[in-house]
């Protein structure tokens, strides 16, 4: 396993963290960001931006340490309210790294096909298909057309 891939333990913690950041969306029948597999996106990103390896590792370790301090061997084993508390705590104590995790989690989650489809957006890049748009209704301009010239000579 290379340094920029998450270990199974780290992945388990991360999945629980991501579910805490973007929880399941019951109305849209979507699981949370962790269950949806956004950890794989974070792996891709840390491959591209090696400085993130340390950032994500720091947060995972801090959250597992939080769990151990509460007699639980890892973050993912904490009950949900305690996980939320841990995330609040880490957001306060590690604001920079946590913001970075939020940014990449949001970015990854909203690129997932299922999420895009739930938003009514085609799950693809804009190019090459582009988008159909309704024809222009230029009759709306009738009142403007009647105005006298507005510019000064």
């Amino acid at each position, binding site marked *: 396993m290379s340094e920029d891939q998450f270990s199974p333990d780290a992945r388990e913690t991360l999945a629980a963290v991501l579910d805490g950041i973007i929880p399941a969306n019951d109305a849209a029948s979507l699981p949370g960001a962790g269950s949806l597999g956004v950890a794989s996106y974070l792996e891709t990103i840390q491959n591209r931006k090696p400085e993130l390896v340390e950032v994500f590792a720091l947060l995972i370790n801090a959250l597992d340490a939080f769990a151990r301090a509460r007699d639980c061997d890892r973050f993912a084993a904490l009950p949900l309210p305690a996980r939320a508390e841990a*995330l609040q705590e880490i957001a306060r104590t590690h604001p920079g790294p946590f913001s970075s995790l939020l940014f990449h989690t*949001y970015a990854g989650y909203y690129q997932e096909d299922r999420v895009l489809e739930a938003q009514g957006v085609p799950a693809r890049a804009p190019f090459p298909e*582009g988008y159909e*748009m309704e024809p222009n209704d230029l009759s709306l301009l009738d009142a403007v057309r009647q105005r006298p*010239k*507005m510019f000064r000579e």
Partner: protein
Amino acid sequence: MSEEPVDVLIIGAGASGAAVAWSLTDTRMSIVCLEQGDWMNPADYPSTQKDWELRRFGDFGLSPNGRGRREDYPVNDAESPISISNFNAVGGSTILYAGHFPRFHPSDFKVKSLDGVADDWPIDYQRLEPYYAQNDQMMGVAGLAGDPAYPPKEVPLPPVALGEFGHRLGRGFNELGWHWWPSDSAIATQAHAGRAPCINLGPCLLGCAQGAKGSTDVTYWPSAIRRGVELRTRCRVREITVDENGMANGATYYDADGTERHQKAEIVIVACNGVGTPRLLLNSKSKQFPDGLANRNGLVGKNLMFHPYAMVNGIFEERLDAYKGPMGCCVMSQEFYETDPTRGFLRGYSFEIVRGMGPVGTAVMGLMGEKLPWGEGHHRAFEELFDRSAGMVAICEDLPEAHNCVSLDPELCDSDQVPAPKINYRLSDNSRKMIDHAVARAQEVLAASGAVDTQVEAPLGVAGWHLMGTARMGSDPKTSVVNEWGRSHDVRNLFIVDGSIFVTAAGVNPTCTIQALALYISDTIKKNLSNLFD
């Protein structure tokens, strides 16, 4: 190392450099253009990938300081509330521009006579009109004839798609009885001159993968090159050199390998934009010009004008479909364009409707703006934001003030160790009052269009994309850098064709006026070839 002398050396291959190069090919002169950037490959543009909105935070960022591209030069804009946005490539900043293409109005050339502020231009709308028309054809401008805010003009292509949001705003403007009109846009809405038509991708400001947007790498350059111009990319000019008589005789530059070279020329034309041009002139020091080239009166770099922007976003209850269609081009309003002293400020502004963001953009911008929480409440907040938020910008006319300027930073340099520009800029009282007025009016029209709430950013910090005034045009050599046809008062074979030569900024995007001026200056050069340096 020195190269074969050429008749014309153009520095900068952006909006103005491309137009002047193309136009000069009517002559039999040999023309070389040096450009520090490279050709862009549209297949690599962000809209070809699902993560397109994230590239704004990386290699397609607005600021050269954060982009990490080799061809960029840094800009110290720490002492300006508005930071510089540009792009350095074949096509220059038109690679990123929105393509909004409104002309100046006749009154914009006469602000001193009409409103008693700043200075009149030494030329007028009528003089530029044929060049506007020629440029509209070359760039492929879409719009609608009959706008009462302008003298009659033809528009080559039908308007861009207004979409659900544009129609909605149109109804809002109608309810208030205010002017609005489909934007003049350098976007091919039908196949035009070999360019494919717009397919409403959205992210025009990240380069147009379709090639429908009129960036000059797809408009002027292919034709200029076919007609004989030699465009040398990845060539960064360090300084323009002069002979013992103080005439420009070429430029020293670094090629793609970093090797120093010298290109000799009979005529030098600078087209590096309102920041790059004064930077280059100030870096071109010699015995004859110890304070920088063409700078005997100390005006090079002074009178920098941006357009202070106010951004007002409306929050709507309904979906807007606003992530589709050209991001920056939709509808414009010039209800508050001409001076009305009862408003408490002079001159005026345009409104431009801007479309909304896609899901990723909504999410990360929502995060950064602290509007999209994590954890519980995330999905509800996203629902309220995504495709329910879009708005408008006000482009306020800036007035020239000598203390707003581009100078050389004493420490900062680019990768070739050429000193970088430093920006000093303060927002004037007039601009502040105009912004306040614009924000209040924008909120009114958004409410009339059904917005339940608005969010304001004014002045918009990233909006240093219209760069003007730093080598102003005028007939008096004491108060201007170039004459009425772009020729330096101090150096008779040196011309400037970019936004630096603007006398005033008007309240519209500048590029079609920059290019019309470049074509006009080129025409004047062509007509005066026999006595050009007299």
